[in-house]
């Protein structure tokens, strides 16, 4: 692999994947693309030169324009990793509209650039298990071949369906390019800061009344590892990427020591609709759908093809919990209460005897 172009290096995942590739002596040159300079902490990761190897060359280009085509053509890139997919409009310039432009137009431009560049041999696209939509008639576990039953109402999920549609078109037009689509579940980990991790970090966590969805998480380090292997090895196809096992939302909240606050579903949808303009609870319809339906995927294809099993959903979540402030109901406090109650009962009973 001589030259790899990584989009979205201004964000945590992109910066870390680019740095990981740059540290590999088998990779010649890593070019990172983003429209804005990376925050200082990520800049450091990109500049790091372990083993004296070349660092990531950062190019500022707007993915929503054909600038990216020039970057890929000038670099004679062999591989393109498209990670500039935004999961939530929080803090994103232009809000939801800007997010949609970035996701949909950005992916179109990147794929068009790859299609035109004869040097490109490999394309890796970040997708999401939101591609399966949310319906009450869904099977409990999605394999890569499951088709969504209904068009999802969440903006991110719609973007993902568009993105995967463009990849299908790209595969038809450039059958010689190995295209890898990775459908990720939400990331967690000590260093991750997403809408979902902020949600679990609140002292009281809103949930939907009468619903306790099954969730899966992926440790961010495993996401980086799978992306790294997708570039340095050959794994064409579409893969679910998740930590094995599941946590129920109630179980995750309890393990985080938080308190669940059940809210009516339409109340939460209403809040999410309102949050489009005023960000009050940090909720989106994507999240409400996830909290009503849950989402569990089969990862046997990933394990077989990559020979790699991510750490479990429960372990990934523990790593995230331990990096945060403990909640009011954390395990030690509950265990202490248990001992106190048991001792109290024993004292009362022995006093009576």
């Amino acid at each position, binding site marked *: 692999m001589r030259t790899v172009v990584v989009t979205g290096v201004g964000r945590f995942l992109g910066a870390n994947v680019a740095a990981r590739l740059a540290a590999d002596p088998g990779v010649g040159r890593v070019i990172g693309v983003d429209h804005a300079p990376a925050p200082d902490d990520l800049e450091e990761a990109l500049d790091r030169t372990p083993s004296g190897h070349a660092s990531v060359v950062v190019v500022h280009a707007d993915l929503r324009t054909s600038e990216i085509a020039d970057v890929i053509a000038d670099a004679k890139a062999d591989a393109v990793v498209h990670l500039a997919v935004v999961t939530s409009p929080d803090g994103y310039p232009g809000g939801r509209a800007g997010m949609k432009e970035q996701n949909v137009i950005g992916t179109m431009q990147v794929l068009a650039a790859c299609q035109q560049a004869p040097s490109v041999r490999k394309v890796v696209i970040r997708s999401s298990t939101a591609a399966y939509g949310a319906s009450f008639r869904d099977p409990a576990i999605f394999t890569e071949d499951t088709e969504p039953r209904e068009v999802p109402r969440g903006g991110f999920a719609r973007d993902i369906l568009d993105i995967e549609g463009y990849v299908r078109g790209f595969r038809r037009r450039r059958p010689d390019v190995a295209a890898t689509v990775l459908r990720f579940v939400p990331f967690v980990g000590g260093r991750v800061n997403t809408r979902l991790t902020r949600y679990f970090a609140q002292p009281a966590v809103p949930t939907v009344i009468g619903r306790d969805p099954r969730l899966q998480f992926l440790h961010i380090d495993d996401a980086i590892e799978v992306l790294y292997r997708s570039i340095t090895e050959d794994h064409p196809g579409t893969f679910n990427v998740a930590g094995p096992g599941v946590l129920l939302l109630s179980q995750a909240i309890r393990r985080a020591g938080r308190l669940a606050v059940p809210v009516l579903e339409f109340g939460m949808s209403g809040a999410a609709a309102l949050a489009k303009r005023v960000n009050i609870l940090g909720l989106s319809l994507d999240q409400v759908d996830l909290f009503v339906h849950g989402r569990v995927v089969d990862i046997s294809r990933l394990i077989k093809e990559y020979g790699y099993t991510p750490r479990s959903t429960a372990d990934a979540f523990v790593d995230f919990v331990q990096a945060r402030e403990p909640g009011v109901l954390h395990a030690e406090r509950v265990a202490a209460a248990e001992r106190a109650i048991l001792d109290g009962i024993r004292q009362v*009973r022995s006093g009576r005897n």
Partner: protein
Amino acid sequence: MAGTEHSDVWDRRVASALALVRRRLTGQYEVDEFGFDAELTEEVFYPALRPAYRKWFRVEVSGVQNLPLTGSALVVSNHSGTVPVDSLMLALAVHDEHPARRHLRLLGADLVFRTPFLSELARKTGGTLACNPDAERLLGSGELVGVFPEGFKGVGKRYTQRYQLQRFGRGGFVSAALRTGAPIVPVAIVGAEEIYPMVGDLKPLARLLGTPYFPITPTFPWLGPLGLVPLPSKWLIEFGEPIDTMPWHDQADDPVVIFNLADQVRETIQQALHKLLKQRPDPFG
């Protein structure tokens, strides 16, 4: 605190109950990928059902040896009673009477999974949506899977049609068994028909509520909440001889094979129902 004076039975009970509460409060329990919570099912759900099973319906079970000790089987049963109490009693019968205390993984209609609270109760106690991917995944991992092919046509039928098996649908359950090579165990349940005898159906109200039917029974809705108490009928559950599906293993998409097998299962259950009814001349005896 000397250990010996506390090692009485009540101390152990209190300690284990507190430990259970602590595990539940801190999320330290396991659920499988379908959302089945074995601890909650065994420690909370089944104990809550047992009085109804033993004292109210006085369930008698025969043919439990027809369920495999290990490995998969598709348990196919008749369905009745206006409210699907029979599925709960069947699951408890499998767990309590089977030597390996196995769990029956029930397949439910999408209405169950659409309904708040009910959907979560169904998943936590081992249920999932009645669809081929889920059925085949459960059977493929060696589970006992319970299915009611009559669906709402069975639970929602009038009292006058009691113990008359309804149509079996498309036979999706047969193709799931064929694909995974799981044997089919036909089950006949007698007793559930009398718990809420449906004498009328308010169709417009059902349409308004989005339910398949709105039952009128001799006690509901006339007696208000009291009408929700099921009549104490006497129940018999018989597990029939398993039907080997291996001979048709590679014909899971042949409709002729599917319908023939589905008919065979249906006929077996219908005959078992007639036989059991003769053993139980008085529904409330």
